[in-house]
């Protein structure tokens, strides 16, 4: 089985909210003092691919799109056990929305040519849009299942458990297909020392827009369908009343009294 996983580099979503800043000059966000990471849901997608590889053998190819991609970040899927890494790295890919990003990824997937399964995270931690997987499926006219928590390969098809708010759906889908992965799939594995060494030696392929046969006007910010008009931080007044006590137990009891006085309970 040939599996392609799409995963990108993001600012660390787990850094404390207090370190979050928007640079008004560039309208870009940063986490002060935190290094970029591989997108967490993309990492779950890598894990899903590696489990299929463990179960029945597969070649796992990872595609990352962006600019200024830190090799130690984007190579993490290789260190986890993926086989190949393709970078769509060029300023032309920069600043895209789900539309131009899906377009470039679909072109890269077509160029790879051989694929049974394409996996994406359910949503990226920066845009929180959850559309690239769906877009790739539509552009390539492939079936699509979102929010998967379990994948099981059958004969020419895949049985997918899709998370719902009330439980889950069991979905059968023919291959090739696009599946987006949710965290319920289970914790991504840690890279092994051997994996890290192998990843260090491996040089990613870098594909420029011309390699994809796409004009720069359709990529990145130039190819956007949605325009970002404003990006801002909501303000919270922070008016917490701390309830104290001589001991933690007393503080707990005082909290109950406080809530009663405030008619909260």
């Amino acid at each position, binding site marked *: 089985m040939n599996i392609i996983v799409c995963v990108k580099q993001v600012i660390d979503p787990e850094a404390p909210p207090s370190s979050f800043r928007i640079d008004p000059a560039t309208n870009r966000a940063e986490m002060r003092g935190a290094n970029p990471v591989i997108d967490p849901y993309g990492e779950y997608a890598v894990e899903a691919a590696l489990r299929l590889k463990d179960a029945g053998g597969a070649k796992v190819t990872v595609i990352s799109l962006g600019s200024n991609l830190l090799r130690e970040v984007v190579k993490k899927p290789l260190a986890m056990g993926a086989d190949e890494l393709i970078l769509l790295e060029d300023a032309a890919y920069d600043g895209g929305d789900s539309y131009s990003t899906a377009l470039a990824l679909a072109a890269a997937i077509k160029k790879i040519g051989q694929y049974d399964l394409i996996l994406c995270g359910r949503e990226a931690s920066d845009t929180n849009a959850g559309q690239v997987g769906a877009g790739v499926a539509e552009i390539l006219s492939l*079936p699509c299942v979102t929010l998967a928590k379990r994948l099981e390969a059958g004969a020419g098809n895949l049985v997918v458990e899709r998370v719902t708010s009330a439980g889950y759906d069991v979905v059968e889908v023919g291959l090739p297909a696009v599946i987006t992965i949710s965290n319920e799939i289970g914790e991504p594995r840690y890279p092994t020392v051997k994996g890290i060494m192998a990843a260090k030696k491996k040089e990613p392929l870098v594909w420029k827009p011309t390699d994809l046969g796409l004009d720069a006007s359709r990529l990145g910010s130039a190819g956007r369908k949605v325009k970002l008009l404003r990006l801002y931080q909501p303000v919270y007044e*922070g008016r917490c009343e701390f309830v104290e006590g001589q001991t933690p137990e007393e503080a707990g009891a005082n909290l109950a009294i406080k809530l009663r006085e405030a008619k*909260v309970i």
Partner: protein
Amino acid sequence: MAENQGVLVYLEHREGKLLPIALEGLGAGRRLADTLGQRLSCVAIGSNIAQLASQAIAAGADRVYLMDSPELADYQPDIYLALMGQLVAEARPQVIIMGHTDTGREIAPRLAFRFGTVAVTDCVELNIDNTSGRLLATKPVYGGNALAVFSTDTDPQVVTVRTKAMAPAVPNASRQGEVITPAYKVEPSVVRARIVRRVLAESAGVKLEDAAVVVAGGRGIGGAEGFKQLEDLARLLKGAIGASRPPCDSGWISDTAQVGLTGKIIAPELYIAVAISGSSQHMSGCSGARTIVAINKDREANIFRHARFGVVGDWKKVLPAFTAKVKELLAS
């Protein structure tokens, strides 16, 4: 391009009733349609759903499209998507509103791509730009650390709206509207991903989405045992149990208890957060609560920026005393 007209709301329903998200969509849609001076339409897909029309009209719809057929009884995303595609091609709305729910999350992006555009998902505010007449869609990004305002020049302008973010329509039974059965074709061949079974995780007691009180635990609870203590408190307050993501991922509590950006969005009267740091992704799901109370051993934890009342301390010591006192106060 901007030749499309009107607003189209996708109606979610169960057992012959519109769900709250449908009323929220109609509430927002009515406001946008009035601003545009255009029609508010809506569409319901299912079987035996004729009674939805009067509910939707009372809730503000000028026109209701019903796709009502026994073969549509069960939700199949590929079929529902194809039907939406047929309707949108015919009705040509400027704006399409779906809920940011299991269905909307799945269908809206694919629908948008089929019309050569993208959706804006999980919107918390919708407005019409006075000069351009285009939809301005505000959505949280970076896990809720920031808000972004988006617009597009391409029709349809597709959005999904966050649950409980839009003021719901207030039904008025005297309103008038038309009911239309549009021409549509159900082609079984479009189904390439088929739902073969729907599994419901059983939840005893009050439903998390509907609960007035939610007692939620985080990573600091440390195990399934701790959640038993939270359940005692929840029961006492006739509330439901919730969690941040790590306890769900660790199997201490059901996945359906997850509150947040990628879990449930709730707005209870009281949200008691125990050993939860208050990440922006988690707060996305509970910041609509009227009162947030936090117990956390770290005074600097972000949760205290959102909480109205807090105790800094080890929950293992604070919580039992708190629960005991609550019990005593409720009895008196």
